[in-house]
């Protein structure tokens, strides 16, 4: 064997293995090549053996990182070269799936494994390893699968690239005569493989004879029930359903062959599996992502292997009384107020669409029947791509009623981000407006399609739509026997998958159970005192779904929900007027535009706004001057800016009065007050802790509530998420300090129990003087004349970064200029003027920070959803280029 990068030559081993395969004449012996990290050498105790099986056209080299990581973690790792592949013998016999499973059993019998066995497979090696796992349950301790498939739905065509590879005239030429199949597979790696690694993958397949195994593997793909290997595949596919040992599936979704539907199929066969999708990774997921350390981390977390560390499964403690989210709708529908407005939706035409509590309840029941009649019920994932309003409200409560899991992704993610999110959620059904259904068609989203509005027959067939919401509503009650769907869903079953904004990498799906959603409603109710009799304007999506649950009348204003900044003052006022609202939920971006358009308000609009007693702005911090301007518009309102995130919509809450008190506390020197945005005290039911940062800015496991200690903000509450969807590794990380959820934000508490947010963990600056956070200095800089927005970032290697301020100059001369910021006068980034630089330095020095440079830019990048959170990671990357000399390009 040639020297291979990342492979210790001592791992390379040959063994002569007697064959019992029916493909060989009795008495045949084959020489196998395999890699063995010999962790059990000299009688050392190991936790067990990982038996790694490669697919086509790779070989044991694919698992090199597993051998190294396994050695360090006390696992023996054996990676075989299947016969006719890699450096194992070329047998001259066409080996089919059944033979290959027998071959692996022969190999194990000859070589012997140590301790409990975990099978690890990739591509068609996944099938072989599953076949082995299915037939060798004794000693089987776990199953790990990466980009593979066990079942080919007869109704679906096999993936196009494989069809091509199998096509007459192409197959032999592409797989054996030339190295095209091999080359194409290697080209699937993202990023591109290193030259040495590519060379290593090719090494055992230099000539056509050596590639016979590749050709046979492709020819053995069971394309249909008549194929000779179909029976073996089906046996394994059905057999694995009874596997109860822990299963981990790690997937690269950018795979033209083993795409998400195959993952979905496996997930249904092995519903207890832990899944991690490495967004951005492809077929060769071992090359694209760090799957080896994920696998070993998982083995430890799941307690697989000898002498295991007890599994860190978190016991849910102290369940509170549970009432389903939709309970109050049902109660109000039969109460004295059944005829009063439950939900309203402002329309462009000006006439609001409304439903009373009775009508809402009836509509939910009807749609529930429609869903059940179509087989959509417990556990079905339903992607809702419908703007906030009456229809969305009805759909949400109907889905929850029948136990379906709602999938909600923000259109603000953009077409690509939204598409990635929907695919990742693998919905069974997509219910959407026409635009969403067109996207579903164009991007090939999974799932059946239901349209929110009735469409023409031509459109229905073009978009593959099986029904409309109207059809759901008019489904004959007889279809489900006329009885209301019973029983209510299990409180601890999944209820919703909400997607994060994706401002820090691909959007993540956040799973809530019914109990957790109900707890969210209770937290809002108890923190803000909302309930029956309250009328609220739902201008902020996540809270919009809670109105009916609270028993509050809710109205959605006329606005483009994908862009909160389109909410105008008059639209807000009209919505408030329609239901005589006293409460408004909005986002900072929406409020900026409301202020910018306040001139258009009619007298009656002003009167409507004057009735508001509570205004809640969620999603991003909001500067005091902006809040004060909002106060002028809603003089009677108590202004709240709660702090939370998709994983825990409410963590802490503060109102304008509280903010003023916090500012006073800074002045009077209350311990811990200052250096950050004050977000108030934990909401009802929530606890907040701080995982102190070490010198390089990494959070420790020591949780403190001591004032003034900066660290990652941790939250624990009944309404915190259950987990991330198909992101096992991410979930492990976020739940790594039990029983807390790690928010990824940094901050500290003060002596009066207020929480101060100092930025994102990823934005912590690692300077020679220790870790420092950006927000405190940013706020100070934003107080300077001529500075509209400031970002403070670190440039240079961790541990020795310098601190740099990047400012957006206030060209309009108006801090509150609405969502549309004035066109910048200066188009190019440059070093800030001497006076600004000197003042900024002086402010920084007061905080013990040396500013290396102050850069003025025309515009700082902010997130799409809130139009307020600065993308400091991007600013830092750009600043590093700008300050390295030469061309930096625009920010």
């Amino acid at each position, binding site marked *: 064997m040639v020297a291979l990068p990342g492979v210790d030559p001592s791992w390379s081993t040959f063994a002569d293995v007697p064959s019992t395969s029916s493909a060989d004449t009795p008495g045949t012996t084959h020489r196998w090549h395999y890699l063995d990290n010999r962790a059990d050498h000299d009688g050392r105790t190991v936790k067990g053996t990982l038996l790694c099986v490669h697919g086509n056209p790779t070989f044991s080299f694919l698992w090199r990182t597993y051998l190294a990581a396994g050695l360090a973690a006390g696992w023996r790792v054996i990676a075989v070269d299947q016969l006719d592949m890699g450096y194992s013998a070329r047998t001259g016999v066409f080996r089919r799936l059944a033979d290959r499973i027998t071959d692996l059993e022969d190999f194990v019998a000859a070589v012997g494994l140590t301790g409990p066995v975990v099978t690890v497979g990739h591509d068609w090696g996944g099938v072989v390893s599953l076949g082995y796992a299915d037939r060798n349950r004794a000693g089987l301790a776990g199953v790990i699968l990466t980009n593979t498939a066990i079942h080919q739905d007869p109704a679906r065509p096999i993936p196009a690239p494989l069809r091509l590879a199998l096509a007459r005239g192409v197959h032999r030429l592409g797989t054996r005569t030339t190295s095209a199949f091999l080359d194409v597979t290697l080209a699937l790696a993202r990023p591109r493989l290193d030259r040495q690694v590519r060379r290593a993958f090719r090494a055992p397949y230099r000539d056509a004879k050596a590639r016979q195994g590749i050709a046979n593997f492709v020819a053995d793909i069971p394309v249909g029930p008549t194929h000779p290997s179909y029976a073996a595949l089906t046996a394994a596919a059905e057999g694995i359903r009874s596997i109860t040992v822990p299963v981990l599936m790690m997937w690269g979704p950018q795979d033209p062959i083993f795409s998400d539907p195959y993952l979905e199929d496996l997930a249904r066969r092995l519903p207890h599996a832990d899944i991690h999708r490495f967004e951005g990774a492809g077929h060769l997921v071992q090359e694209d992502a760090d799957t080896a350390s994920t696998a070993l981390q998982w083995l430890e977390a799941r307690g697989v292997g000898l002498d295991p560390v007890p599994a860190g499964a978190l016991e849910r403690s102290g369940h509170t009384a549970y009432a389903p989210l939709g309970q109050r709708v049902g109660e109000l529908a039969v109460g004295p107020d059944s005829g009063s407005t439950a939900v309203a939706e402002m329309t462009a035409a000006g006439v609001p669409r409304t439903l009373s509590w009775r009508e809402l309840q009836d509509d939910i029941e009807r749609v529930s029947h429609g869903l059940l009649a179509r087989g959509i019920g417990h556990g079905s994932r339903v992607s809702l791509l419908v703007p906030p309003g009456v229809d969305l409200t009805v759909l949400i409560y109907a889905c929850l009623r029948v136990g379906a899991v709602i999938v909600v992704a923000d259109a603000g993610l953009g077409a690509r981000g939204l598409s990635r999110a929907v695919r990742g959620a693998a919905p069974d059904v997509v219910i959407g407006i026409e635009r969403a259904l067109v996207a579903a068609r164009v991007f090939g989203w999974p799932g059946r399609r239901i349209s929110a509005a009735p469409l023409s027959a031509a459109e229905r067939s073009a978009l593959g739509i099986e029904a409309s919401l109207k059809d759901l509503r008019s489904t004959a009650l007889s279809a489900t026997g006329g009885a209301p769907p019973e029983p209510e869903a299990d409180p601890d079953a999944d209820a919703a998958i909400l997607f994060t904004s994706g401002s820090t990498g691909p959007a993540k799906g956040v799973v809530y159970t019914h109990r957790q959603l109900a707890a969210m409603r209770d937290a809002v109710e108890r923190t803000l005192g909302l309930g029956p009799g309250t009328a609220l304007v739902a201008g902020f999506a996540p809270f919009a779904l809670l109105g009916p649950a609270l028993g509050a009348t809710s109205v959605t204003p006329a606005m483009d929900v994908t862009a909160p900044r389109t909410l105008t003052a008059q639209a807000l006022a009209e919505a408030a007027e329609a239901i005589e609202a006293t409460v408004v939920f909005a986002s900072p971006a929406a409020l900026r535009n409301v202020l910018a358009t306040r001139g258009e308000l009619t007298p009656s609009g002003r009167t409507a706004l004057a009735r508001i007693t509570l205004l809640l702005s969620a999603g991003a911090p909001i500067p005091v001057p902006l809040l004060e301007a909002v106060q002028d518009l809603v003089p009677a309102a108590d202004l709240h800016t709660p702090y939370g995130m998709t994983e825990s919509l409410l963590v802490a809450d503060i109102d304008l009065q509280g903010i003023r008190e916090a500012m006073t506390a800074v002045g009077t020197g209350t311990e811990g007050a200052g250096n950050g945005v004050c977000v108030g005290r934990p909401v009802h039911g929530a606890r907040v802790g701080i995982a102190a940062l070490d010198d390089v800015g990494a959070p420790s496991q020591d949780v403190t509530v001591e004032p003034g200690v900066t660290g990652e903000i941790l939250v624990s509450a009944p309404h915190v998420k259950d987990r991330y969807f198909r992101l096992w590794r991410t979930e492990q990380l976020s739940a790594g300090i039990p029983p807390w959820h790690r928010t990824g934000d940094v901050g500290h508490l003060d002596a009066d129990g207020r929480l101060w947010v100092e930025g994102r963990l990823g934005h912590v600056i690692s300077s020679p003087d220790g870790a420092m956070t950006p927000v405190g200095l940013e706020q100070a800089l934003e107080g300077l004349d001529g500075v509209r927005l400031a970002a403070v970032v670190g440039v240079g290697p961790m541990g020795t970064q310098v601190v740099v301020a990047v400012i957006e100059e206030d060209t309009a001369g108006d801090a509150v200029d609405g969502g549309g910021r004035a066109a910048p006068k200066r188009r190019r980034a440059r070093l800030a003027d001497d006076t600004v630089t000197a003042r900024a330095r002086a402010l920084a020095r007061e905080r013990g920070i040396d500013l290396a*440079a102050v850069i003025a830019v025309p515009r700082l990048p902010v997130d799409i959803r809130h139009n307020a959170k600065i993308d400091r990671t991007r600013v830092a990357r750009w600043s590093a280029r700008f300050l390295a000399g030469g061309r930096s390009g625009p920010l």
Partner: protein
Amino acid sequence: MTVLVTGASGMLGRAVAEQLLADGEEVRCFQRRPSGVRGARDHLGSIEDSAAVTEAVQECSSVVHLAAKVSFTGTAADFDRINVVGTRCLLDAARKAGVGDVVYVSSPSVAHSGSSLVGAPAGPADPTHARGHYARTKAAAELLALARSSPGFRVAAVRPHIVWGPGDTQLVERVIQRARQGRLPLLDGGTALIDTTYVDNAAVAIVACLRRMHQAQGRALVVTNGEPRPIAELLAGICRAGGVAPPRWSVPGLVARGAGAVIERAWLAAGRSEEPPMTRFLAEQLSTAHWFDQRATREVLDWTPAVDIEEGLRRLESYYRR
């Protein structure tokens, strides 16, 4: 202790000698012309003159070696003779005379080849890749000096980066002069971050090294103010201190590097002995980031700079106002 300071007629050499005197040490200075350091005994001579060096180093316990050929012009042989042969000559003499500790004053350019440096560690000296005769010969001399380090004859290298201060003819004078003539461009807007060292800080660091030889021996330590700044800001600060208007026009760094290379060749071909207005090396220095990780240096020397850039510029200004 008695310390021999070579090259004490330069700005940094003088500052080192004065710092040692202020600390109550006995100081001897060795260079070609009188050092002008009051309280020190001058030995005049050439660094490659073995007899002169041997005489100067007698009865010294320590040596700080700063004497070097720094300029751009000159033949390779000149640089080799003064920087490499001279250093070897001094080390030989010092060892024979029973000197215990030697601090070799070097330059960060010995380890770097013209690419941008961002929070860079010191790195080993590399004569084959160093740019220009100065850096190459300083690298070779540093290697041979550190190779001689042993418990009985401890050698450390201190590499101050861009030393400036009142009386500096290398950088400050030239910047002010060219700005006055309107011949000082910024390269690429002058946005590259540059580490510099105020002269007193460099001097204190070098003296600190003598006292921390048990930690520092055999090592090379980059010394800076630890306050990287955009080059435009530094140049503007120096200009203002010198009473001239800061540069306003910017030239693309790529153009300057090309022009520098052309001017360099023409200058050398014409046999001119003064410094050319732009060199490729200077253009690189002025258009790429050069700043360093100071953590190891500060720990080993148990030292932090006492004069920050702002204070340094104030001192420079009062020097020019005299």
